């Protein structure tokens, strides 16, 4: 049964223009008919595979952390807890996500614009720098040379190769983003499409723009710190470091938000044939993201010395709330596009008839829609509230902060990327999944675990339980301190949620790896539908 994905051939996708591929470097997707540049496909494949490898490294770290913070188990020693925490942060938030985002950028700029990838050489340079940098960072962490956590706040000092690794990952990603912009230029010059770029490409462009300013901050903070770690520079000012590092740190989260929203539109279209009602609104929301979402990084410094109330309030309100407005707009336009598509297919009974009738057994759809709900309800609401200048006083550096970002980055972006992978593997790797029933339930296991963990973290943090902290009983401290039983209950539930999420993550990795390396090929025929 060939899938009836509501997509179309190259002609419709690009408004009847002709591609600019060199001979022998193009194939037409057997399922969607979209043009696939073979160079881009190769780099999408190796970036996606490396992304899943670092997801596994970060995943192993996450179960060790969950079992350590659960008070009854308290698995790791203090030294190894802080070391594995460093490993977890960098592998999940930086390596897994950036490798996959480079793959997404390559896909959107080539297949959706009917264009060839600008340069294979630049793509190799990007991949090489990112891979060497990531391995270097992981080596420095695991050998105990850089127990400084992901943020490596000065004057904590890591091994010079640790900083050099992060610089390489940053410059590698910037090279990949440059390759994306070059492809946009090549596509425009060769007129491989006419009119405006498709919405998903516009969203990816917004993500790429935010990535540029993010990696700019990365260079500004990491290069002097690298020199400082080698003793060339005398000191680095702590307040300055925090300001610039969070220019890298939080803005990389905004790249993830932007890429996730683009993936939402993509998956809504693939799984239900959804069509945004008014593209001007969606595109305006992406423009608001590009202009204003990055100044939200100020909410990491709301209770810091050195920066005044004026700076704190301006950057976390007014302009920033225009970016919150953009998120609220996407929160409407994405489900609205699904509702319109489902109603057009005849599911018009009652308010949510269209939602119940949606393809919940399709992991691409379930991951996408749960990502939307978790990001919107749990992530957005807690984020804006925690990012309020005065409210931050009762939340800064407590477990409420990880409670928030595990709903946005993990329950939101990672879950959406997982949903996307259920189409990337059959369409771009041309391999079929085994154990399709497991694939259908995997998003639910992962989303359930992450939600339970994040809610438990938020409640524990409300009791004051600090983040990045090995022993909430402060055993051996000169002045005794501790938390009441309910905080321990929430930490226990956090351990349970974390374990369930890890099971979901392991399912995902095993399913993807078994499909990519040992799956039956589906070249020459359409993918088997979900």
């Amino acid at each position, binding site marked *: 049964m060939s899938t*009836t*994905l*509501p*997509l*179309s*051939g190259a*002609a*419709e996708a690009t408004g009847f223009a002709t591609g600019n591929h060199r001979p022998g470097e193009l194939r037409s997707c057997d399922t969607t*008919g979209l043009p696939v540049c073979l160079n881009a496909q190769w780099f999408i494949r190796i970036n996606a595979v490396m992304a899943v490898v670092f997801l596994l490294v970060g995943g192993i770290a996450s179960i060790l952390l969950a079992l350590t913070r659960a008070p009854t188990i308290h698995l790791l020693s203090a030294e190894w807890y802080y070391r594995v925490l460093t490993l977890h942060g960098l592998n999940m938030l930086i390596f897994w996500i950036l490798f996959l985002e480079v793959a997404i950028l390559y896909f959107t700029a080539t297949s959706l614009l009917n264009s060839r990838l600008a340069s294979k050489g630049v793509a190799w340079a990007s991949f090489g720098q990112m891979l060497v940098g990531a391995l270097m960072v992981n080596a420095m962490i695991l050998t105990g040379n850089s127990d400084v956590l992901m943020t490596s706040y000065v004057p904590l000092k890591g091994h010079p190769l640790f900083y050099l690794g992060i610089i390489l990952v940053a410059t590698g990603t910037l090279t990949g983003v440059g390759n994306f912009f070059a492809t946009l230029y090549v596509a425009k010059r060769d007129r491989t499409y006419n009119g405006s770029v498709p919405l998903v490409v516009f969203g990816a462009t917004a993500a790429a723009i935010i990535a540029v300013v993010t990696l700019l901050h990365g260079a500004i903070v990491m290069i002097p710190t690298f020199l400082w770690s080698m003793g060339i520079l005398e000191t680095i000012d702590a307040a300055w470091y925090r300001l610039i590092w969070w220019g890298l740190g939080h803005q990389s989260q905004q790249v993830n938000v932007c890429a996730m929203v683009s993936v939402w539109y993509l998956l809504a279209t693939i799984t239900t*044939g959804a*069509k945004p*009602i008014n593209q001007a609104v969606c595109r305006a929301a992406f423009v608001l993201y590009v202009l204003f979402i990055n100044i939200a990084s100020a909410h990491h410094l709301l209770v810091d010395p050195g920066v005044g109330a004026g700076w704190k309030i301006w950057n976390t309100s007014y302009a920033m709330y225009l970016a919150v407005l953009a998120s*609220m707009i996407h*929160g*409407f336009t994405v*489900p*609205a596009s699904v*509702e*319109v598509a489902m*109603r057009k297919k005849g599911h018009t009974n009652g*308010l*949510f*008839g*269209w*939602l119940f009738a949606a393809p919940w057994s399709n992991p691409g759809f379930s991951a996408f829609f749960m990502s939307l709900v978790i990001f*919107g*309800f749990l992530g*957005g*609401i*807690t984020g*804006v*509230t925690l990012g*309020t200048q*005065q*409210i931050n*006083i*009762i939340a800064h550096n407590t477990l409420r902060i990880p409670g928030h970002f595990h709903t946005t980055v993990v329950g939101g972006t990672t879950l959406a990327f997982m949903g996307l992978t259920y189409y990337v593997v059959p369409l771009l790797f041309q391999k079929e999944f085994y154990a399709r029933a497991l694939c259908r339930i995997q998003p639910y296991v992962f989303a359930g675990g992450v939600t339970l963990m994040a809610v438990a973290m938020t409640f524990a943090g*409300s009791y004051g339980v600090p983040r990045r902290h090995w022993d909430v009983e402060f055993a051996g401290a000169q002045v005794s301190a501790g938390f009441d039983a309910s905080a321990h209950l929430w930490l226990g539930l956090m351990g349970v949620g974390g374990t369930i999420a890890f099971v979901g993550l392991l399912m995902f990795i095993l399913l993807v790896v078994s499909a990519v390396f040992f799956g039956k090929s589906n070249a020459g025929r359409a993918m088997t539908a979900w």
Partner: protein
Amino acid sequence: MSDEKKVADIIRDEHNAEEHHTPGTMTLVLALLASFAVYYFANWKALADTWHVR
């Protein structure tokens, strides 16, 4: 109907797009706004109970 034909219809529909009714989505986003307001003001109240600091 072949894929290409079906999509052409969708594109033609786009031109005479009639009023799109999305009551389900409107309910969802209103629920979002309501829970947002409740959570937001609850946090302000929690903050107000702590010591005074400037």
